[in-house]
């Protein structure tokens, strides 16, 4: 069985995929992964997950314009310039 190994470098950080080990069960995976991914004290924690239980998502529907949900969907420069000209003000100090 393949166990995917996710490691947390420091407490508070996200777990990141680090590799995989072949083991018959979680107990062996634990014994082996802790040495492969932590013998130098380089990992605060590990998650060991049987590969078969991982559900991967790689396909997305991208048919319609979704820019209204994203930062790049907004362009305020031109309108801000016009508003300042109308008010007779210059750009705010903090910009």
């Amino acid at each position, binding site marked *: *069985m393949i166990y995917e190994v996710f490691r947390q470098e420091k407490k508070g950080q996200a777990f990141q995929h680090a*590799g995989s*080990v*072949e083991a*018959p*069960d979680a107990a062996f995976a634990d014994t082996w992964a802790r040495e*492969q991914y932590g013998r130098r004290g380089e990992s605060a924690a590990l998650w060991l997950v049987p590969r078969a239980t991982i559900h991967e998502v*790689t396909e997305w529907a991208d048919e319609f314009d979704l820019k209204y949900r994203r930062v790049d969907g907004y362009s305020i420069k031109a309108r801000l310039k016009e508003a300042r000209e109308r008010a007779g003000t210059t750009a705010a100090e903090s910009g």
Partner: protein
Amino acid sequence: MDTKTQEFLAFVQEGGQVEAGDWLPDEYRAKLVKFIEMHANSELMGVLPEREWILKAPTLQRKLALTAKVQDEVGHAQLIYRVAEDLGKPRGEMFADLISGKAKFHNVFHYPTYTWGDVGVIAWLVDAAAIISQKALLKCSYAPYARIMKKICWEESFHILHGRDVILAMMTGTDEQRELVQEALNRWWGPLMQFHGNPIPRDEDPMYVWRIKSQGNEEARQQFLDGYAPQIWELGLTVPDPKLEKLADGTWVYSEPDWDELMSVVTGHGPRSQDRLAFRKQFLDQEKWVRDLVLAA
């Protein structure tokens, strides 16, 4: 080359990376698996020249350091074999091909070790040559391989320091110890110069074309000489090549390495090729019952 493959080639040549589940051109996949497999085999076979010195280590600290270094090599083998397995080749099949000679491993691991001088030279210079190749894989177009190279390069950094420490202890020791280092260097120089492979122009090297490697063979060798010839000379050691010299334009020139020797060695005719493969086979066979018991989950 069909359109899809051409697009793939352009993609990787622009720095694009692919994952295990992506479509890969047949030629790319075949070359990739062969390259990765040879790397994994090399890490595994590289253990054999070094493990006997773990048992002979002359201080507790050296025993610990050398055991840890060789443990790393085994760990690297595990990481690399896993990548090849996920490309579809089972580990057992790779071991069988290694033993039968169908698959290869790097030249340096076909040579004997005779003294503690070898231990120092291997950790200092052979590992250095390997690290240069490994750094050129950090941007591999095949992302799973690039990702494990990060861990491998990080771990190798302590090997070089350990190697240098072993060498410096001998170079500041007795005359006999200094002689051990020089004698080992004399034997390892030839294989080291052959290690990075013949100077095929990188645009003719499929490994570079597909961006599996990010540098050509000669680039790697020049990098090695630039980094390590000065380190060798500053210790008062001599390099057994009177032609070795850095030109004004920064290029290193040297005696032509023996490419026939390299070909002969990597095809299994090195001084220790067969008995190391036999040793590996002996233990694979002896402990097959354990794998059958433990890996049948």
